[in-house]
């Protein structure tokens, strides 16, 4: 099964293909539902449980039911999509409000990592190119932004440089630009190969970037990392010292990313990406410049990670090379696949697994990574299309049953 088979588009499939049958037998659906229920219940039961939590659970159930039962293509379907998005954003706005810093950090990481995973999904899910260097671009963005507004003095290649103290938002823009630049450079070389080979090229790039972060002690402070103070950080006149304010900045960045990527996906660019993913020789024979478009998807996806990196640094107030090593890239890859390749909702679902859910599994002790890995294996076997993809398949099947075909 190639990754192309794993992609189920956002809308109703008119007819589920015959080989899909059996993948989601009722038993497996029940098992998956049970696992999901556990994952929702577990963090709720652990701490910060309030009766109001039931309202959120009720809302989640309502959103899921509405999405499952109302066909996508209808006018009501559009309303359901808009309402679901509003409910989702409302949850992210209201839920963390006034909560402990640990929760705010969790949600902040969720917002920042979601942007990375959305970027990865644009490359992998929509344009069909696997890149395992998303953490490297996160790191490039983080270090770029941190160095540019620190006012520090660094020593690079024997030369002492006084770093500028730029406006934070400007450094975010520069971080995006620098990540894009690196992705275009690596893409020009790497995109000569495709599929697994491209994955290896990007993997090597990630290792290379890590080594630079680790060894260029004069610039990056090496493995000791850099402490980044959020104190006195002001964005558009708002004091970012309280974590809560900063969280809302991260959330705004996520929402902006969602809107931009939604627009790109339905634009002619998005159509070209999908065409290249589905069948690149055919796309090329129809006049679609495969190389340029793949490079474009790569640049946008990596640029998003770069911007996320700039926000990530101030969220944790500390960066070190280890945060940008392969493990983080594989986490992003896992989130992309488990959420559902080539879907808009997929990254938002998948990222919760690598942030909020995996964090709440931490109470299981040293073995939490083991259970997490086991969960990943089970979900990928039961639902190789990811959660959003399987959901779409289920909806398509319900719609087909209702039509009586």
């Amino acid at each position, binding site marked *: 099964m190639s990754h192309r088979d794993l992609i189920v588009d956002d809308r109703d499939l008119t007819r589920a293909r015959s080989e899909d049958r059996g993948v989601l037998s009722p038993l497996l659906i029940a098992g998956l539902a049970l696992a999901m229920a556990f994952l929702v219940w577990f963090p709720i039961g652990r701490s910060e449980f309030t009766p109001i939590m039931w309202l959120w659970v009720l809302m989640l159930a309502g959103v899921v039911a509405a999405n499952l039962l109302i066909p996508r293509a209808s006018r009501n379907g559009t309303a359901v999509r808009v309402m679901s998005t509003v409910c989702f954003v409302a949850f992210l706005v209201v839920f963390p409000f006034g909560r402990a810093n640990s929760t705010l950090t969790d949600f902040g990481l969720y917002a920042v990592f979601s942007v990375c995973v959305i970027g990865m999904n644009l490359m992998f899910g929509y344009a069909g190119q696997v890149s395992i260097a998303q953490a490297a671009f996160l790191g490039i963005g983080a270090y770029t932004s941190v160095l540019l507004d620190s006012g520090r003095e660094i020593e690079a290649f024997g030369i002492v440089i006084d770093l500028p103290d730029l406006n934070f938002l400007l450094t975010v823009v520069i971080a995006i630009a620098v990540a894009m630049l690196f992705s275009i450079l690596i893409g020009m070389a790497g995109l000569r190969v495709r599929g697994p080979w491209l994955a290896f090229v990007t993997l090597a790039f990630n290792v290379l970037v890590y080594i630079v972060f680790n060894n260029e002690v004069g610039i990056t402070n090496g493995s000791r990392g850099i402490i980044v103070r959020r104190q006195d950080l002001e964005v558009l006149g708002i004091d970012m010292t309280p974590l809560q304010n900063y969280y809302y900045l991260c959330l705004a960045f996520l929402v902006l990313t969602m809107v931009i990527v939604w627009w790109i996906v339905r634009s002619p660019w998005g159509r070209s990406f999908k065409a290249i993913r589905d069948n690149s020789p055919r796309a090329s*024979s*129809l006049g679609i410049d495969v190389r340029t478009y793949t490079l474009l998807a790569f640049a946008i996806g990596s640029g998003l990670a770069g911007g996320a990196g700039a926000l990530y640094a101030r969220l944790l107030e500390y960066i070190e090379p280890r945060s940008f090593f392969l493990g983080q890239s594989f986490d992003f890859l896992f989130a992309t696949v488990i959420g559902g390749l080539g879907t808009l909702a997929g990254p938002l679902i998948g990222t919760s697994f690598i942030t909020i859910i995996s964090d709440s599994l931490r109470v299981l002790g040293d073995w939490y990574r083991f259970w997490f890995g086991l969960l990943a294996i089970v979900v990928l076997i039961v639902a190789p299309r990811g959660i959003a993809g399987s959901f779409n398949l289920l909806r398509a099947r319900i719609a087909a049953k209702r039509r009586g075909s």
Partner: protein
Amino acid sequence: MTVRAVAEARTPLVTVRNVSKHFGGITAVNDVSFDVYPGEILGLIGPNGCGKTTLFNCVLGQYRSDGGTVTVGETDVTKWMPHRRAKYGLARTFQLLQVFDSMTVRENLMTAAQPHISTIAGTLFKSPNLGLDEPVDAVLNRFRLGHLADQYAASLSFGQKKLLDTAMAFMSNPEVVFLDEPAGGVNPGMLGDLEGRIRELNTEQGVTFAIVEHNMEFIFGLASRVIVMAEGSILMEGTPAEVRADPRVVKVYLGA
């Protein structure tokens, strides 16, 4: 005056000169030259493995040929990438079905019609359809795919996919369309329909065709000129009647 003479009286649209293609020690196409004249329907036949599809791939850029030139009008396109040739007026279909499964029929056609990436950049924040609805509807009607417009390509039958595949080649208003076995796997009932579509596009819109085909009746009924290939080289060319009567052709292909 024969059809061939009429065609040759004009300047060729596509000129292929001395094109060769080797795979390892195997010579798939050996020093082939031919012309495609404006407004004609050129047939290309030959036994399996004689290099027809490889020749198409060299002409349209999927393969880089090991020698020779391909010229469209006055422009040498030998070193161009396939997408650039497509935008210059050379469209094609492939032997195996090639549609975009995850998109609807309409989106498939829209993808085939959209302008170059740099042109799109300016219109990215306007309508996603780029004002292509009208040409897409026209092609949908011409190929009688209108009722399937919003179905996913993955859910179409083989024949419907084949129609869509062919229709996509016409979305860029091409000068020449290279069809690789358009009749392959199409049932006899739809074959007449396909023939009608091709003839219609040829006479009404002046689209030039070059067609690789194994179905002799289909190609002899349609083509004004036929080239016969054998073992990577051109064996002969002529009108369908000439080709049908030639003993060499009968020997390598028809009679064997």
